[in-house]
């Protein structure tokens, strides 16, 4: 897979304040790339620079072969963008709005109607195409926003918090829509979010941002793996009977960090996988293991610890 977005030392300063700090990044063709980070991390600023909407203070980026500062219009011509407060014209219908954006993209009249119809179909707004957007619900507007971003058959779409403000149903629909469109339209997608499960479900690779810096870029699995050693692992254990002596011997075992007891169930936090030793100790004490398995650390918890401050 070839690189379609390449950012080198992108920096954006607002006065003294650095919103994005020396960010370098590569996104490959056809992937769904997630930018994850707390409020104010600089996600929006980053993708606005990548989409040619704001000029970086320093650094540069090549998007689909064009330099974002020198040829922002060409970048815009081959990308789509869904703004985090997406809005279009409330006094126009869904179809009129899309027609306006299609004209701005120089889509010939003969193709416009077909393109608009198929997009409205794809985002599930066919029934509402002649309704004024002012009457739309938040979720419908968001879906129109996605259609608007795809109007020029882009190579790349930037989606800034595409599910913010949607209910669970709407959130699920939009996520499915993004996945499907990405597959069908052969898109590269860059999506920002501060919700972990969202990027986990959606993205092939994730970049974690904090205070304007990109602190890690990898697949979800690798991120988890990389974080695991220092986090240790969790083992859940259910026994037929559990006395204080056995509990104490487990607690005293080397490598055990903590043990939480709930009836005959234990949640053990250990440095590494101690299942064999545990099984031996339990057999020696004359108890039977009903269940024993490793609990994947919840990424939220891990990230929370590693990257500080609660932001999930």
């Amino acid at each position, binding site marked *: 897979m070839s690189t379609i977005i390449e950012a080198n030392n992108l920096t954006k300063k607002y006065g003294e304040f650095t919103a994005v700090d020396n960010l370098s990044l590569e996104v490959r063709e056809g992937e769904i790339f997630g930018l994850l980070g707390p409020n104010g991390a600089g996600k*929006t600023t980053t993708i*606005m620079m990548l*989409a040619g*909407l*704001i000029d970086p203070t320093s650094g540069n980026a090549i998007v689909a072969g064009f330099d974002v500062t020198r040829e922002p*219009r*060409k970048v*815009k*011509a081959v990308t*789509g*963008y869904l*703004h985090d*407060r*997406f*809005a*279009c*014209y*409330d*006094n126009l219908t869904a179809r009129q709005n899309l027609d*306006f*954006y299609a*004209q*701005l*993209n*120089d889509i010939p009249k003969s193709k416009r109607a077909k393109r608009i119809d198929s997009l409205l179909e794809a985002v599930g707004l066919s029934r509402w195409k002649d309704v004024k957007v002012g009457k739309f619900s938040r979720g419908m507007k968001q879906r129109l*926003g996605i259609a*608007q*971003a795809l109007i*020029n058959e882009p190579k790349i779409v930037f989606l800034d918090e595409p599910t913010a403000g949607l209910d669970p149903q709407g959130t699920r629909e939009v996520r499915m829509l993004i996945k499907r469109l990405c597959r069908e339209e052969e898109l590269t997608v860059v999506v920002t979010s501060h919700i972990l499960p969202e990027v986990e479900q959606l993205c092939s690779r994730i970049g974690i941002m904090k205070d304007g810096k990109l602190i890690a870029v990898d697949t979800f699995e690798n991120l988890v793996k990389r974080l695991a050693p220092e986090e240790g692992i969790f083992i859940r254990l259910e026994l037929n009977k559990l006395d204080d002596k056995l509990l104490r011997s487990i607690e005293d075992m080397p490598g055990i960090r903590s043990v939480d007891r709930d009836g005959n169930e234990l949640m053990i936090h250990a440095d590494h996988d101690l299942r064999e030793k545990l099984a031996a100790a339990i057999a020696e004490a004359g108890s039977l293991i009903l269940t024993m398995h490793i609990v994947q650390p919840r990424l939220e918890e891990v990230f929370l610890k590693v990257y500080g401050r609660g932001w999930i």
Partner: protein
Amino acid sequence: MAGMWTIAKKEIIDHLTSVRFIIIFAVLVILILCSAYEGVQQYFKEGSRMLIPGQSAFLAVFTWGITEKIAVVGSLLGIAIGFAAISQERDSGSLITLLTHPVFRDSVINGKLMAGACALIFASFTAIALALTTVITLTGVAPTGDETARLLTFMGISGLYMIMWLGVSMFFSVVMRDTTSSLLASIITWLISTNLIYSIASLIASIVAPLGGGIITPHRIGWKRHFEVFRAITRFSPTCCYRDVAQSVLGSSFRGGLIIVEPGKPMPAPPSLLECLSQSWPEITVIVVVLVVSFAASYLLFMRQEIR
């Protein structure tokens, strides 16, 4: 100019179908038609007595209120179109959406100015044409060639004046943080131009060059000086400038607003349209300069503005 025509087309449709525009335009038309009717009544009642010597009775009907209605309500129409031009799109977020598509920023602001100007030219021409139709119907008199030329010039000046207000209010819509502040700034400017400067000019003129209580005779130096001071100050008001130009074009005012007839000499001949225009040059310049400066300023600011 990628996108300019697309934006202009959309904006024109927006204007012509917007409630704001339709209401103010309707008010303007009604007021102008009323003024035309009153003017015609006056024309029948007083005949040539209402006239300044040498002025056409037909054109005098138009100076009877119509000019004033455009000076006040026409400017409001310009503001109504301009005050939200950029700020509303910025407030709602549609400006960012617009700029994510491959348009030049100049196309956005040029398209909006052009659409607004078209709507205003349409409005001023329609309103004045309706007034003209009314006057012709009621009096049964058709304008002569010179009168027609003067009326067309009057239409042009009125359109220009309204577009100037579009420029001013668009400037505020670029500069101000939100639409409410933009509207407020436009309205304050409008009050200053339509009322405040006029009042201040009267006040200062009567302090600097009091008219006294005697019978006013054109010979009196004080009268002339009073007028000069008054005019110098009202130059700062585009509305006063517009009034002056419009009245001069319609032939109802000689330079300085008074005719000085030297004893024993004949009445001076009324100035031709071209003479009127060249006499009004400073006032026309004021209107054009305000338009150009406010538009250039909004243009430069908008090109540089961070969009978020």
